[in-house]
């Protein structure tokens, strides 16, 4: 029904993410209906849409955190359900729930996750990010005492700790001030993997993303590159006639 | 030995229990079939409307 054609020309023939006919039942309604996506290596995909349009459900399925009620998901050409344990090593996920232990210090949290991901010498990896985000003096205080924005930054560091090839971020700029948001943009620009993220912040979204998927009521209603879209369109995602790509 | 009362009670439990349960699932099956056919009729109409 909708175009599967990725908006970018690609060199890699195997898509990093390939979702076909994904549907997700949640509380007796379809949070996602027949979602088809192909994402290729290096793309930065912004999921755009109002609350309840299915962005979070889609990210959770891509993160192998929740299983689609219907449809098939392949990551790096591998069936996601079958190979989820190997695939999880290659995925970094940041959800609404930051999954930090508030009675552990930031360092303890990061060390715990680096052990779970079998990362050697994690300090070498996370210290630069900790400096960038200005968390270094709080490294040994408990996460309980962090502000929401600081927790968000720490959770982003955590999602990057094992150098994932795909980064899935659900509203990464939540709670961040302008400066931190800018830092986050820089960090993500340096990151060389694939990013799929959702955001309500249009400036942030368009500066990080190079492709936009517009979701409405659980379906993808538009799939465009950032150049094709102007931000005024996005303010009114329900105006289908402006956005839907005619086959 | 006068213990027919216990046998009678047990028989009541067995037969009434089973018949009540069968009645219950029979009703439920009819009810659900009814609902299913209603849904099917509605869907067929929708398909016609679509065309």
């Amino acid at each position, binding site marked *: 029904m909708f175009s599967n054609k990725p908006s970018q020309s690609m060199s890699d023939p195997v898509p990093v993410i390939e979702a076909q006919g994904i549907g997700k039942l949640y509380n007796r309604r379809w949070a996602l209906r027949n979602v088809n996506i192909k994402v290729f290596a290096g793309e930065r995909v912004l999921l755009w849409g109002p609350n309840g349009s299915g962005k979070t459900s889609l990210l959770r399925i891509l993160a192998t955190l929740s299983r689609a009620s219907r449809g098939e998901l392949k990551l790096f050409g591998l069936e996601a359900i079958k190979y989820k344990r190997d695939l999880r090593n290659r995925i970094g996920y940041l959800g609404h729930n930051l*999954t930090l232990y508030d*009675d552990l210090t930031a360092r303890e949290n990061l060390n715990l996750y680096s052990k*779970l991901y079998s990362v050697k010498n994690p300090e070498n990896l996370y210290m630069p990010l900790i400096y960038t985000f200005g968390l270094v003096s709080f490294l040994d205080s408990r996460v309980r005492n962090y502000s929401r924005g600081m927790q968000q930054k720490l959770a982003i560091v955590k999602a990057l700790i094992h150098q994932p090839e795909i980064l899935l971020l659900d509203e990464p700029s939540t709670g961040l001030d302008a400066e931190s948001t800018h830092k986050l943009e820089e960090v993500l620009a340096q990151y060389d993997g694939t990013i799929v993220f959702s955001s309500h912040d249009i400036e942030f979204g368009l500066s990080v993303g190079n492709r936009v998927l517009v979701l409405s009521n659980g379906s993808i209603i538009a799939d465009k590159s950032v150049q094709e879209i102007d931000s005024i369109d996005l303010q009114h995602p329900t105006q289908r006639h402006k956005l839907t790509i005619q086959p | 030995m006068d213990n027919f009362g216990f046998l009678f009670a047990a028989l009541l439990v067995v037969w009434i229990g089973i018949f009540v349960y069968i009645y219950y699932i029979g009703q439920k099956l009819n009810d659900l079939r009814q609902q299913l056919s209603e849904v099917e009729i509605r869907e067929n109409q929708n398909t016609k409307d679509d065309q």
Partner: protein
Amino acid sequence: MKFWQQVLALVHKDLVLEIRRKEIIISMFVFALQILVIFNYAFDLRVENVKSIGPGVIWVSIFFSCAVNVGRTIFLEKERGGWEGLITAPLELGALYVAKLIGSILFMLFAEALILPMFVVLFNLQVITLPIITVLILGTIGFASISTMFAGLLASTRAREIMLPVLIFPILLPVTIATVEATANHLTGTTAMNRAPWTGLLIAFDALFICAGYILFDQVLEE
């Protein structure tokens, strides 16, 4: 190797959290202590009957307080911890189960180490002997193997605090019988001839349900 590194990291984290939060062991102990006191008045434990009723009293108090509290190692993870973080990590099959199992066993043993001396003091019955400690450890492992599995199962379910005891008590009946009877045997000095192989039963139960938990826990984690 990687498996045990992950397990070790998770157990270490749970212990550190418990030391800082002090939420599970203390409430287990206090709860068990209160049940001991209630039993004393409910059954009028005296010198003549303490040997026959005592084992039941110890085990019921321990099991009740653990059933109420042990699930929280997992429930808290869901509530404000890193449940999703743990699931999205490339944990090997069952590593999380084994880690939570070890954590639960340690918490329970710690609470039991506090409650047994209290029992000795309050009821003047020497229960701290090697055979009884062995039974205690085996029973605790069996209890933890089942309760960890079902706490994982119930973590996202309504009424989980009530459902946990409802589901695990019937399944744990063999553990209850075996621990109470084995303890009573040791206290009354029943000759080995008349003893049923309770220790063997406990070992079989533990082995069987640790395997089951290890295999099935994966099914429980998904959404």
